[in-house]
């Protein structure tokens, strides 16, 4: 990412943080300041989903088109970063649950489904470590991540709705209506956009690093 763009991203994220704490109003029915976590928790969960979809799309391209090292590494990098954000979403969710529900963890369907998603993609890393040959690793991991393209939407959108949940309605509810205070919505969308840009910046860095690592390892014999 070009330097001015990077400064823009930093400025954007700083504004989002300030706005989340000082400009956005508090949501009704939430204890104390706890609703403000929404501006970070939701974008993190969203970015983890974006990351897993990016991994799936790069993997599909790997399988269907030219099998380049770049696509393989880009998929792996997206999953690593996606796992990081999914973990952060889980932790922020647990902190909020502690405040609102007075318990860190209670197997709410949303909590259960993010854990399943985390395990699904953690298994991708286990698979990567278990296959030594580069060609076979690329092929098998790409197939698994492509499978994720189909099952991840299920983990994120279907599984949480199977059963009774205490989790606040997703921003866009079942009727397709947006039901939040306008200023909250602005901050939430700005934060989601910022986090998404942050992901793509991190992803690009991680992919480049992984490619260089691979090249160094190759060159050393």
């Amino acid at each position, binding site marked *: 990412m070009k330097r001015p763009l990077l400064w823009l991203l930093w400025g954007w994220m700083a504004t989002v943080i300030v706005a989340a704490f000082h400009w956005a109003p508090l949501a009704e029915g939430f204890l104390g300041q706890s609703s403000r976590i929404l501006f970070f928790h939701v974008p993190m969960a969203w970015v983890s989903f974006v990351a897993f979809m990016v991994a799936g799309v790069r993997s599909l391209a790997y399988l269907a088109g030219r099998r380049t090292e770049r696509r393989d590494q880009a998929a792996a990098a997206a999953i690593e970063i996606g796992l990081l954000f999914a973990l952060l979403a889980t932790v922020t969710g647990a902190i909020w649950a502690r405040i609102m529900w007075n318990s860190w963890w209670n197997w709410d369907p949303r909590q259960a489904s993010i854990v399943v998603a985390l395990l699904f993609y953690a298994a991708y890393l286990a698979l990567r470590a278990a296959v030594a040959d580069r060609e076979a690793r690329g092929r098998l991991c790409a197939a698994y991540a*492509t499978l994720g393209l189909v099952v991840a939407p299920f983990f994120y959108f279907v599984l949480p709705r199977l059963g009774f949940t205490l989790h606040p309605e997703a921003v866009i509810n079942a009727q397709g209506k947006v039901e939040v205070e306008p200023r909250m919505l602005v901050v939430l969308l700005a934060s989601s956009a910022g986090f998404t840009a942050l992901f793509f910046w991190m992803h690009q860095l991680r992919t480049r690093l992984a490619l260089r690592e691979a090249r160094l390892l190759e060159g050393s014999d």
Partner: protein
Amino acid sequence: MSSGWTAEAAAVFAKDWRAERRARHAVATLVLFAITTLVIASLALGPIGATPGERSDVASALLWILLLFAAAAGLPRVFVHEEESHTATVLRLAARPSAVFAGKLAWVASLLALLEAVATPLALALFDLPVASPGRLVLALGAGGAGLAAATTLLAAIVAQGRGATTLFAALAFPLLVPLAVLAVAATRAALGGGDAGDVLVQLFLYDSTIMVAGFLLFPVIWAP
């Protein structure tokens, strides 16, 4: 799909059963596993509830945990053994990948059906459970078994090419099988207790068809370069 394709898939299926009849690895292991686990669970738990409703809640969860663990313990073999004994090369050279997948899927599904046929009546007897709707029970077991077969066949093909296949299989299979387990338990419980499970069965069929379609599309690239 031509009749040639069906014949290839049938040949894979038939050779697995023939080898099984002569050596009896898989069936004996799976069935013994099921019986011992059920007996131990029944002994350890003691009476698990006064009413049939309470008992069927626990028993349907127990039945599916048992089936999942039996699958994880016994089924990676269907591809691991082919790779380890180098017979996989023969299949790669002679058969179409999709026919190999279909044959193996049928073989795994038949093993699971056999396992269910042994484990379910035993569980019903041990936990003293009435069956409100036998038809629904067969449907729940069938749909759950089909999804379990599709997922394990696909993942077994993946892990067979890596190191430490059995552990790896557990890591890969667990997240994929959680939704299946949740749905299958709900469907089984409803069949035993007489509740309505139409939605759950539809979701189970959706899961099955998703994994099967994904399996047929992905297997060729998993199977060979």
